[in-house]
């Protein structure tokens, strides 16, 4: 007996977006598919790619991360080399959180210098994240855009700062990550605003805000699915690759608290917490994942077949 399997065909296609690499590096292309994940029909030229976050700030690491990257935490350049060379990260997400007044308060010039240094040290594609302080970021993004000797992506452009971030990115040929707080209408709105500025659509990624496992992950999964369905159904402003940054998984008490004996080993649990967060994002349709645990690069890439 032959079973006729259903197919879900869509009129739209996710725009392919490429994170450029330096000389000798491998660029990462995301998107290009015209189907949902885990289905046999349709085309999906680019499997999801997994990158790693490297932070410039000083912080107390959860035990699982401390065991894995603690020795390198104060040397972002050395850490990024290992991410790419040893752990298989396809791209890097450099967070300049060290420029935040509460996380070290390094100067904007310092942040820009780190970007230059890191880009010289590795040819991997790079996304540069701001520090989260509105005033500092307003100076940081233009400085980074100018300092970067090759194209990167700036993360992130949102409703308040998109002119500034997109302007800086346009002037120096970079891409942007457009951010919205788990809200499909705002995700669309910010991409419309970017389009109005004349920002090239093939240089825009969507960051829908990724909640950690147990702390709003279900909202992220649903918003990623809705963005993807809208994009495939023909909404060009949402037909963009989706980036899920798994950093919030490490803010969960369950991923870092060693005091609860009944929860199992905190090192194994922390790593699983991030992994489960990433797998749920993949199941919803995420195209790019950013993780922090070295072991999870291979784990999540291993599920990135769709």
């Amino acid at each position, binding site marked *: 007996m032959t079973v006729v*399997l259903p197919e879900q065909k869509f009129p739209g296609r996710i725009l392919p977006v490429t994170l450029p690499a330096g000389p000798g590096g491998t660029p990462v292309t995301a998107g290009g598919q015209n189907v949902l994940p885990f289905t*046999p029909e349709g085309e999906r030229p680019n499997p999801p790619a997994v990158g790693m976050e490297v932070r410039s700030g000083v912080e107390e690491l959860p035990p699982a991360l401390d065991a894995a990257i603690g020795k390198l935490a104060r040397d972002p350049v050395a850490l990024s080399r290992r991410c790419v060379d040893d752990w298989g990260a396809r791209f890097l997400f450099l967070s300049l959180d060290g420029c935040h007044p509460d996380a070290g308060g390094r100067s904007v010039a310092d942040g820009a210098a780190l970007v230059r240094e890191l880009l010289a040290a590795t040819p991997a594609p790079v996304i540069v994240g701001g520090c989260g302080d509105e005033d500092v970021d307003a100076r940081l993004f233009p400085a980074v855009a100018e300092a970067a000797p090759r194209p990167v992506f700036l993360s992130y452009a949102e409703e308040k700062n998109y002119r500034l971030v997109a302007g800086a990115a346009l002037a120096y040929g970079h891409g942007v990550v457009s951010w919205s707080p788990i809200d499909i209408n705002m995700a669309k709105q910010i991409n419309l605003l970017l389009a109005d500025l004349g920002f090239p659509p093939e240089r825009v990624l969507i960051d829908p805000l990724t909640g950690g496992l147990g702390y709003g992950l279900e909202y992220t999964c649903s918003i990623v699915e809705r963005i993807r369905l809208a994009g495939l159904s023909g909404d060009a402003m949402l037909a963009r690759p989706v980036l899920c940054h798994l950093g919030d998984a490490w803010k969960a008490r*369950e991923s870092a608290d060693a005091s609860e004996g009944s929860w199992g080993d905190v090192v194994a649990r922390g790593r699983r917490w991030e992994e489960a967060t990433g797998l749920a994002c993949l199941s919803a349709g995420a195209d790019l994942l950013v993780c922090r645990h070295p072991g999870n690069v291979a784990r999540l890439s291993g599920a990135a*077949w769709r």
Partner: protein
Amino acid sequence: MALTALEIYKLLPKTNCRDCGFPTCLAFAMQLAAGKATIDLCLPASEEAKETLGAAAAPPLPKVVVGTGERAVVLGDETVLFRHEKTFYHPTAIAVSVRDDLEPAAFAARLAAVRALSFERVGQRISVDLVAVRCVSGDPARYARAAVAAAEGAGLPLVLLAPAGPLAAAAEASAASRPLLAPPPSDLGAAARIAAERKLPLRVRARGIEGLAAALPAARAAGAKELVADPAPETPREAVADAVQVRRLAILSRNRDLAYPTAFDLCAPFPDPFLAAALLIPKYGSLLVLDTTDPADLLPLLTLRQNVFTDPQRPIQVEPGVYAVGNVTPSSPVLITTNFSLTYFTVRGDTEASKTPAYLLIADVDGMSVLTAWAAGKFTGESIAKMLSGCGIEEKVAHRTLILPGMVARLSGRIEELSKWRVLVGPQESSALPSYLRRLPPAAFLPANG
């Protein structure tokens, strides 16, 4: 496929007799189409109409119940592909395996480990749902004893993973507890007859969708009615692809021959059970059997399940009240927010990140976020003033200064009017709390004079 109101209307008597309680047959048809009424309200309806509409109203994915009483597990009975379309109703059931050939002490220890896989999260208990007893001994008497002991020891419904002989023995010993029979593919016929005779649910295992398309009718022909489909994948990738296909066959094709709840045996030698489980929870697995009893594996999976199966229309609420964050003192700051779980966790996380001990007042607004609750008239000057005097915070701190979410700054006047409290307007976004709290002058929280 679901019928439209007009299609349903054509099947009705069109007499507008009103006996159903609706003014016209068309109005009743619209209610039927929306799933808000059932055909049995229409007494004069023809047999044909009843049959057609009854079939159309049955859930596209049938419901299978394993176990009895409070711990009974419901599999299937889902209606959508994406949770935002409505909700997912029946959480992926998780079974942990135990072998029947273990020494008594090891057997008891294993069951104790299964029992311990139960955690409290946001006011809900999340636990492993079933114990799966795997026949390794091949001895029917021993297997039946193990099954009974496992059900008692774990206090959970059973999955019986065994060939026909031991399965028959265990089914006889434990039929009253409604175990799920899970024979190997070679023993399907014999097991289906046991299931039919004892009216028990049966897991049908066969390779891939094509395999199930042959095995499921065979099980039905033998009289088994409540079926669960296991496509016997060899990799996580196959598992997810098969689960997606079965769900799409049920929802999109309304294929009644293949639409059953899915089960996956992720025990050795299945590669990478954690990865498969984390994908099958959001993507349509109804029952997963796992070998691990490590809480570092199960707590993430059970939490993921809790997330995915939360009704998008009914957010998880946090118990309203006073929450202390850090080592609070009578001069710690007091912040108020609402009992929407995400709001609470965000504010709590950001308060913890500030390293400033503080009290959080969680207002009862039926689980809405701050702005939504304000717009709905549930987070008002009156309700906040009432909470300040009634929740016990006035005995815990010596000062009377409240930090109000910046989004509802306009409530400050009313709160100060109705209570003894002074209001500081906090940041609009919770993410700004760490720097806000660190910069607060301590003098703001000195004891109030008089």
